[in-house]
């Protein structure tokens, strides 16, 4: 199977501080890959490097075999249209309503008539159980609602790859579990490839097909959850041991 994303020898630095040290990993289609590790280990930085929000010092990032670090803005836009990103804080545009937030990608990237856009917005909001907040503004929503609305925006264009940065952080266990269910159903129904950054153990057990374990910018492990538990890497064992209750 061809990987959809393939990263080779990625090195990222903030000033003199090396945040990512020689990361090489493949992400395969239709799988949920979880990037995990303790706080400050470079999870979010890895995500930002993959999305080219931060330019890496060296290395290569390929989407569907195409090197994105060399692409110009027009070519990059084509790649970005196939991606959806759910940011840690939701990152909804605050000055417009939830409805308009979700309609932005649909309006600007497709030629769909208004009536169909309205239907798609309703469906996407219904998928995240938020139909009632259609005309509300982000400032009127709770933390969990913002995140779900942001997820609705991220999947507005039915992206082929969905990136989620700590989707369940700050949510109660029930909402977190329903978000996980949602991610699983997106994978199943739309055959979406999903990359999730998280350190919630419950979430990892529910959704992960593959895990990438980072520690101080280095990749300690890449494989399935079962393999990780059997691999006998002390840091990973501690991670799963401490989180159990």
């Amino acid at each position: 199977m061809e990987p959809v994303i393939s990263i080779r020898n990625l090195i990222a630095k903030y000033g003199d501080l090396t945040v990512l040290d020689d990361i090489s990993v493949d992400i395969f289609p239709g799988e949920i890959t979880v990037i995990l590790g303790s706080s400050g280990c470079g999870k979010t930085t890895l995500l930002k490097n993959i999305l080219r929000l931060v330019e890496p010092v060296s290395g290569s990032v390929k989407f569907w075999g195409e090197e994105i670090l060399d692409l110009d803005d027009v070519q990059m836009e084509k790649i970005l249209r196939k991606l959806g990103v759910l940011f840690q804080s939701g990152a909804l545009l605050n000055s417009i309503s939830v409805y308009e937030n979700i309609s932005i990608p649909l309006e600007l990237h497709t030629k769909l008539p208004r009536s169909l856009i309205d239907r798609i917005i309703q469906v996407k909001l219904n998928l995240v159980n938020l139909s009632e907040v259609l005309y509300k503004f982000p400032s009127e929503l709770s933390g969990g609602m913002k995140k779900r609305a942001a997820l609705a925006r991220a999947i507005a264009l039915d992206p082929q790859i969905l990136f989620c940065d700590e989707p369940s952080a700050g949510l109660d266990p029930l909402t977190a579990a329903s978000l996980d269910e949602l991610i699983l159903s997106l994978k199943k129904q739309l055959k979406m490839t999903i990359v999730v950054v998280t350190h919630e153990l419950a979430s990892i057990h529910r959704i992960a097909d593959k895990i990438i374990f980072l520690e101080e910018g280095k990749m300690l492990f890449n494989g399935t959850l079962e393999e990780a538990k059997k691999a006998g890497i002390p840091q990973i064992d501690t991670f799963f041991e401490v989180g159990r209750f």
Partner: protein
Amino acid sequence: MSCKIVNNILYLEGSLNAETVPETFIEVNSLLKQKSPNTIDLSNVNVLDSAGVAFLDELNTRLSAEGILLFQGATPEIQEVIDSFSSLKIKVPAPERKMGFFEKIGDSLVLAGQNFYNVMLLASEVFYWAIIGIFSRKGQRKGSFTIQCSLLGSQALPILSLLSFIVGFILSLQASVQLANFGANVFIADLMAFAMVREIAPLITAIIVAGRSGSAIASEIATMQVTEEIDALKTMALSPVRYVVVPKFHAITVVMPILVMFSILVSEIGGGLIAIDYLDLSVYTFVQRSINVLTLKDLVTSFGKSVIFAWTIVIIGAYCGFQVKGGAEGVGKATTSSVVASIFAVIIWDAIFSLLYL
């Protein structure tokens, strides 16, 4: 993507996604004008996404109105996509009713009334704590008064002097052309002294302080409100007004007259340059007449009203800051509205003072 109607069955073929739906939508619309199918065949649809499903729903809603519509031939995968993305059973909330013209006017009047009442409440609280604060520094950090004096006062001096100089220069230049026509050159000193002391210096200073310090106060308090710092102060049994606003209030009360004094001096220099160079007045005459024409009442009124301006700016800035709700974009709004409201209030005050002490 292709479509055709045979025997009242609409056959859709190929992929039905966000890329192809806009074209197909137009195509099917033109087909529907000729015939109205009762069944849609999906057996040859191989790609379907949420845009495609929205399109099918749209057809469904439209055609069901004319008769019963059936879907046939969808593969299990396609059917699954339809089931998960169908919008037919979703209840959509009604959009909120928009206010009418008169309702809006009434609403904003009520709001303005409430705001005025709340500003007065805050003002009373600020005055209360400010008077107590003169005798007791409890609930205020050490050195905060000095820091605020420097922030609100001395750091405003460069921009204030530059603007005052330019305004004095312009005013004097404009006036001297007219005065020279009447041979009334010497009155430039009277005019500059009067205009600067009684009107322009306090007003310019107030506008600069509103733009510089009023906005800073509003954004500082608004940020503290958004990041729950104000709540944190309350739970530490500290009055936010006493801790945050009072030091600024004390500081501005002291520095504002000094700023005005400075502004008068610098603008007189700007005006004097024109008087001496263009109207051939001697330095002695200019200074002499300027001093003679002014009375103590002029100076007291000038400094007095500048203090009232300063209090207004601090209270409005603090009020706008405390009013912020929601996220970061509230901070920007609070800053803008504090500047607009305080300049407006300053000009209203100025009009009142002009009428009182003509």
